């Protein structure tokens, strides 16, 4: 769950509030993806979307994955912004991020109303917590001999390099 959460936040440029919870029992009033807001489209040409907890097929049968992301200022469930990822790249090789996502989807048990990054174990709901992500990022920074104080859950977001790129900063600095 942690690996999927970190990868998801990196590729979707998310802040912690958009994919994890601060509390053990998640509150409705959040940006978290619900299980049904991460959907998969198959290669069969039917254009049908399957909610993430209804997917029962091999990875090779998947064409796309769709995330319905809620606005930072609008958390109405019917106003998600769609973000799509292909299951394979231009060389027809599996995209590692989507593959990791698929593995999470097919190994975790969740109800429709559960957060995407959660699982049920003997009917108990376990969610990915903000603190868990924060600890993982700080220990990763430490591993790379970086000051852990500079890394937090919002550090996954790529806003800084994006802004730097727009400001035409040299790639070395970015």
């Amino acid at each position, binding site marked *: *769950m*942690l*690996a*999927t959460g*970190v*990868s998801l936040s*990196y590729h979707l440029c998310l802040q912690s*509030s958009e994919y994890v919870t601060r509390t053990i029992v998640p*509150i409705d*009033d*959040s940006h978290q993806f619900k299980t049904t807001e991460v959907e998969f489209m198959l290669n069969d040409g039917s254009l049908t979307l399957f909610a993430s907890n209804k997917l029962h097929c*091999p*990875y*090779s049968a998947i064409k796309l994955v769709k995330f319905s992301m809620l606005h930072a200022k609008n*958390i109405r469930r019917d106003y998600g912004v769609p973000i799509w990822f292909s299951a394979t790249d231009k060389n027809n*090789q*599996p995209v*590692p991020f989507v*593959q*990791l996502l*698929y*593995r*999470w989807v*097919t*190994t*975790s048990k969740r109800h429709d109303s559960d957060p995407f990054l959660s*699982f049920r*174990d003997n009917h108990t709901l*376990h969610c990915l917590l903000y603190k868990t992500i924060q600890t*993982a*990022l700080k220990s*990763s*920074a430490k*591993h*790379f001999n*970086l000051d852990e*104080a*500079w*890394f*937090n859950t*919002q*550090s*996954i*977001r*790529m*806003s*800084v*390099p994006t802004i730097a790129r727009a400001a035409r900063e040299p790639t070395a600095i970015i």
Partner: protein
Amino acid sequence: MHITLNLTTLRLMYLLLDTTHDHPLKLQAIQLARTSVSMNTQNSYKSTCSKWELFFQRYFGCTPPDDHYRTLTYTQFLDQLLMFVSYCVYELKINIRSIPRILSALRYSFLIKQINCSAFDDPFLRAVKQGVARMPAPPHRVRLPCTLDMINYIIDLNTTTNATRGVSLNAQSHVSDRGVSLISSLFAVQ
């Protein structure tokens, strides 16, 4: 909390209630006003209320009851707000970037108690806020974005045997060998 009452029940309730009580429709409106800001924001606003209470206890010797504000004149209320801003800046030494949020929180807490908040829009209070904004602020926190290497390191640690519950390579018996080897080779490279 949702209030689901039909009109007949509401009318009946109103007749049974003492006239000094709020009409049930008004109670519903108050509830709507409470939800005008998100639950997360409401929770973060709570700390401001405690700052206000501390301020009041320190300078006025008590925590004011809600009806206290209804007897205050506009000028008295404005004075208290001005004092509170100074208290936050000079005594609590709160980051000056937090002052507008603190005042928004305070305004919200008065608003849901149906206390007149027009003093919050007073030009003098606005000038004080602008003055606060011009004070030297502490530097912004340094935050660096994670690199893909860092992300892959976390993924690697958490997709190995006995790692985070819910996903581990050993638990992926039905994932294609090609897929697992691809992820494994990715980690091996990085």
